[in-house]
């Protein structure tokens, strides 16, 4: 591959040298930055501005020029509820179902995932051999694509699948998991935790291993019990990393779509429909395609994510200004 790239790079050198002569070394930096900035401008910043425009227009045309201005109507449609806790009393009940589903999901999923990641990191941090192997074992599902993860578990959870076969054998009896709203929800929490915890385990493990050994030795010399050591030493020293993990997990969890869509399609009914799926269905899968509503909902999710990302940046502030 180098043989193809090398001559191309040499070709690029020609205009680059010319630009260097024109602009001088310092301003050449802009040339290096240009492709990235163009992509960011086009595919990140411009869309944010357009999102606001979409949210304030109606109709199902994708071209902004053909969309009538409706002001805050999309937002008021979404917010229109007699009782915000009861989606059935809302004008856009699907939106509120998605919101509540997402809130429950994020709380449970992040809770379990960070919990198990911490537990696993603590176990892996012990004096065990083949730590690299076990680390890879827990990380392995992170590589699998969301659709593959969904299908793997869908296959296991079939009415005649291996889980039910096992339960039958133990005498507990099988169950039609995916048809029951609450179990379907529980399984989406389970499979997303299964698929992603390895990633956070790695980060927490790195955080644990950064704690110097002599701190533990000092604790041992003071005859501190393991629980005391954990509470008074490990946990405080680990808390910055825990915060990073928590925020990262929250940011990702709010955006959950792929696995769940492939696993249950949002069902049964709307039991596992989360907010990104709502945006997808209103804006792209339904008829008419309600871009305005989708954009309004997107902005609300964006607001949440901005807050979370700011928290993340604040936690990491020392690393950014290298």
């Amino acid at each position, binding site marked *: 591959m180098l043989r193809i790239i090398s001559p191309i*790079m040499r070709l690029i*050198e020609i205009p680059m040298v010319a630009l*260097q002569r024109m602009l001088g*070394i*310092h301003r050449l*930096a802009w040339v*290096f*930055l240009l*492709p*990235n*900035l163009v*992509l960011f401008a086009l595919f990140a910043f*411009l*869309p*944010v501005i*357009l*999102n606001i425009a979409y949210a304030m227009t109606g109709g199902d045309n*994708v071209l902004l020029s053909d969309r009538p201005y409706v002001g805050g109507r999309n937002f008021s449609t979404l917010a229109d509820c007699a009782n915000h806790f009861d989606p059935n009393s809302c004008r856009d009940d699907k939106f509120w179902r998605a919101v509540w589903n997402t809130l429950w999901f994020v709380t449970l999923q992040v809770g379990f995932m960070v919990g198990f990641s911490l*537990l696993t990191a603590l176990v892996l941090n*012990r*004096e*065990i051999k083949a730590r690299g192997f*076990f680390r*890879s*074992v*827990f*990380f*392995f*599902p992170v*590589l699998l*694509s969301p*659709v593959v993860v969904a*299908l*793997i578990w869908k*296959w*296991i959870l079939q009415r*005649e*699948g*291996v889980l039910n*076969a096992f339960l*039958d054998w133990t005498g507990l009896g099988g169950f039609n998991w995916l048809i029951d709203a609450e179990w379907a929800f529980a399984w989406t929490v389970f499979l997303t935790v299964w698929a992603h915890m*390895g990633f956070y385990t*790695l980060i927490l493990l*790195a955080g644990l291993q950064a704690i110097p050994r002599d701190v533990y030795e000092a604790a041992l010399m003071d005859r501190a019990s393991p629980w005391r050591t954990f509470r008074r030493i490990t946990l405080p020293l680990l808390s910055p990393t825990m915060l990073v993990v928590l925020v990262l997990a929250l940011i990702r969890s709010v955006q959950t*779509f792929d696995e769940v*869509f*492939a696993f249950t399609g949002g069902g049964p009914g709307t039991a596992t429909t989360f907010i*990104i799926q709502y945006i*997808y269905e209103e*804006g792209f899968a339904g008829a008419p395609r309600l871009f305005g509503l989708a*954009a309004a909902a*997107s*902005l609300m*999710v*964006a607001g949440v*994510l901005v807050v979370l990302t*700011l928290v*993340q*940046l604040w936690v990491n502030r020392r690393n*950014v200004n290298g």
Partner: protein
Amino acid sequence: MSRVWEFLTATRGNGRLDWTDWITYGYLALGVFLMFFPVIWLLLSSFKTEADLQRFPPTFLPYQQETLMVDGYEEPLPLFLMTEGEFEGRVLAQVRRVGLQAQMVDPANPEERLRVTIDQREPVEQVSLAWENYAGLFERFNFLQFFWNSTFITVTATLLMLLVNSMAAFALSKYEFRGRTVVLLLVIGTLMIPQTVVLVPLFLIVTELGMFNSLWGVIIPGAATPTGVFLLRQYMITIPDEILDAARMDKASEWKIFWRIIVPLSAPAIAVLAILAIMWRWNDFLWPLIVLTQTENFTLQLALNSFQGELQTDWSSLLAMTVLTLLPIAMVFMFLQKYIATGIASTGGK
């Protein structure tokens, strides 16, 4: 030998097995089972025939009924073990089955037809891999096309990302220029704009650029990632400036410095980013779902998802397709797992 013993008995304390060690290794064993079994089950199931898949409770390994070529018959005949009746204990080949009756022959004596009832026999089975599940993918579905789409997107997007991000990281790490802080802030700002919240306008932009329903509509928007820029920038900062100054004194152009010095020296970070990019692009789902609407442009992920709707009862094909979809990434992982683990741990986040 004593090293093996040491390994097996590595414990927390003074050589005795502490209860915490039991819990530790128990937890790890459970973890290995929980993480690996689902995928192994997928793999095994993908080699079972439809008939084998319908069996409940399922067997662990894929089994198929043994068959035998018998004189006087064109097709191989399925073999059964007689469990009752006058032929009990013998292995007979079945010629035909009508309702509750079956016509069998002894392979050693094929002229004589023997009549039995179906409850007197059970199939003789052997472990056998149903490769036809996989072969069928290429014949009945446009599998190669989907594979090509996914591969093209992944490779092109990764190369584009590596080039664009390393250029930007180079500028942000090795140059002093007015506006550098602003640009850095802009890049950080991009962190707050994940694809999921700008789907609608992204769709417009991609359509206006004529990239709708094209693989490029997936490749290009994904190429500029703030994570990539940060990752490479952090690494490039550690490259000593003296190297660049020496090269400049030798009249090397900046591009040459970039291409011949910075990039090779940043190889570890570039490798990590490449692996991440390959993973992200291969596993991409939502954005391709929106952009690629024609079946011939589907990536493997889209095809897999769309077929699970159509092939509700054809799990053998679906499972085979799932295995083939996960195989490339699994292989990348196996060869490069060391870099992934250390890379992610050191950068502390996606």
